[in-house]
């Protein structure tokens, strides 16, 4: 599947991503965590093919990503970017349908329309289908783009041996508590249905609650990876984030969580 092998990305002399090895597998939800400027989004953009690694390689099914046509890649993976500045008056549903009107896909038919409505229902926006995108709130816009990515994966024609990949860059940044759960729950459901899911997440506790594996990045490198129990160590996180944090586990199911430590006089 999609793999970064010793991938390094430099701008000038500054390495934004250094020597990263990471493999996405069907059925697995990986969350990338780490402080601002750690290289999380850059790594994601390398994996989408948007950026090309300075050194190392990004492979999809053993073939370098750069050798794929954009339309062939679009059949395999969908991306939800951090922020999208769309200033043209599309309705929410039309934005979602953009996920299916790209080269290589069949024209929107009744089936695609129905699937688009399903995707809007999944993110809780069915009632706002015909509302103008430019009139939606930040969180609603974010969910529209998630629905667009879901539609792209739902209607793209793929061989059975070619599982799809969903990549999300901070999908919960402007969402309220309930919708954070809706979106990450859907990401996990996608993984359970055999897709590979990768998300850049800022909220460590959300990452621990929904992802199968956490990858902690700092200064362009992977510092730690594994389950939440393996990554959530006081010393490790305090060093990566440069501030004092305490980890603990919740009572009943024993879920690891993180609390920033406030220094009170």
């Amino acid at each position, binding site marked *: 599947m999609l793999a970064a092998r010793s991938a390094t990305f430099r701008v000038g002399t500054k390495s934004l991503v250094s020597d990263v090895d990471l493999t996405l597998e069907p059925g697995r939800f990986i969350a990338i965590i780490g402080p601002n400027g750690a290289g999380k989004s850059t790594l994601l953009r390398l994996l989408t*093919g948007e950026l090309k690694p300075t050194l190392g390689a990004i492979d999809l099914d053993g073939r370098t990503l750069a050798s794929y046509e*954009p339309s062939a890649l679009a059949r395999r993976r969908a991306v939800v*970017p951090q922020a*999208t500045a*769309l*200033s043209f*008056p*599309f309705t929410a549903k039309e934005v979602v349908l953009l996920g299916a009107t*790209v*080269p290589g896909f069949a024209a929107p038919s009744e089936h695609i329309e129905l699937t688009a409505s399903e995707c809007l229902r999944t993110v809780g926006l069915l009632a706002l289908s015909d509302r103008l995108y430019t009139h939606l709130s930040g969180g609603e816009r974010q969910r529209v783009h998630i629905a667009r990515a879901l539609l792209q994966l739902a209607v793209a024609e793929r061989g059975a041996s070619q599982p799809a990949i969903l990549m999300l860059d901070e999908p919960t940044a402007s969402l309220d508590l309930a919708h954070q759960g809706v979106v990450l729950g859907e990401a996990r459901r996608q993984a359970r249905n055999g897709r590979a899911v990768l998300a850049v997440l800022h909220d460590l506790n959300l990452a621990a609650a929904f992802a199968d594996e956490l990858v902690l990045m700092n200064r362009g490198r992977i510092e730690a990876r594994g389950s939440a129990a393996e990554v959530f160590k006081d010393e490790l996180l305090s060093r990566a984030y440069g501030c004092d944090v305490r980890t603990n586990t919740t009572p009943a199911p024993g879920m690891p969580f993180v609390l920033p430590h406030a220094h009170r006089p």
Partner: protein
Amino acid sequence: MTSEALPARVRERRSAHRFSTGQLIAGSAVLLAVAAIASLALGPTGITLASLPRAISSALGFSTDSAAAREQLVLIDIRMPRTLLGMFVGASLAIAGAIMQGMFRNPLADPGLIGVSSGAALAAVATIALGNGIAAPILQPLGVYALPVAAFVGGITTTGLLVMIAGRHGQLMVGTLLLAGIALGALSGALTGLIAYASDDRQLRDLTFWSMGSLGGATWPKVFAVLPFAILITVMTPMLIRGLNGFLLGEAEAYHLGVNVERTKLIAIVVTAASVGAAVAMAGIIGFVGIVVPHVVRLLAGPDHRVVLPGSALLGAALMLVADITARLVVKPAELPIGIVMAAIGTPVFLHLVMKRGVGGVE
């Protein structure tokens, strides 16, 4: 307007009521047909469409009386090429505007505003001024195509420069683009002025009139000269529809959706330069069509390029004919430059856009 009419209008706006693609295209086609018939029928000589059969028979050589010959001159040799050229110029300027707005993701992008028209105009003026001088060996073999080809090269150079200046890390910086476009436009304008400064009185009046736009000099050879450009634009524009829809989300997002970003940009630049180049070469600089028409189509039927591109072509052609009819009837038997008429229509719409949306296209 009655007070009962208000609530319905408000309700319509709220629910984002739109015409379907089919409705918009059919409506624009009807408008264009009406405008084309009017453009053939109206003029300072008072010859109407009733004379068309006699004019045709005269053109085909069946009729030799002098009244028929005069009708043939007015209808077949003057108004018909003028109407066809007007349709071409209006449609291609509107398409160029729609494509640029899509590519630059900014509803205010327009070939006139960001210097592409001025670049094309500079090349065309240089061709006129130097055509019999030092550039003769290159230009003479091109014949009637010299002017549109030169304007095309001028347009594509300006657009290419803009993309190079404003493009960083795969994204076009809209602010940089507008400023660079204004700068390039000013430079082209200054160089055009320099050429005009060096030309004689007669050339000067031609250049001035031409820089305000006119369809006055339309002839059949000019119609044939733009034919290859019309074919190129008609064939290539449909290839842009899906790519431009993706571009509205952003270049990175378009790539994620499967759009070949570089190829789409290349096609967009070639089509824009061909449209603007040929239109400027034939009719001079006519502003605002490229902004007003796509904007109206988006208001009526939404921003999907499946309707914006064909709708803009049809409505642009219709608007150009209406402006041309106005230009030749208002002060007859003299003629207003069509650019003046278009500016009178375009300025209020443009200001409305700016006040509503801001320069960055953000609401």
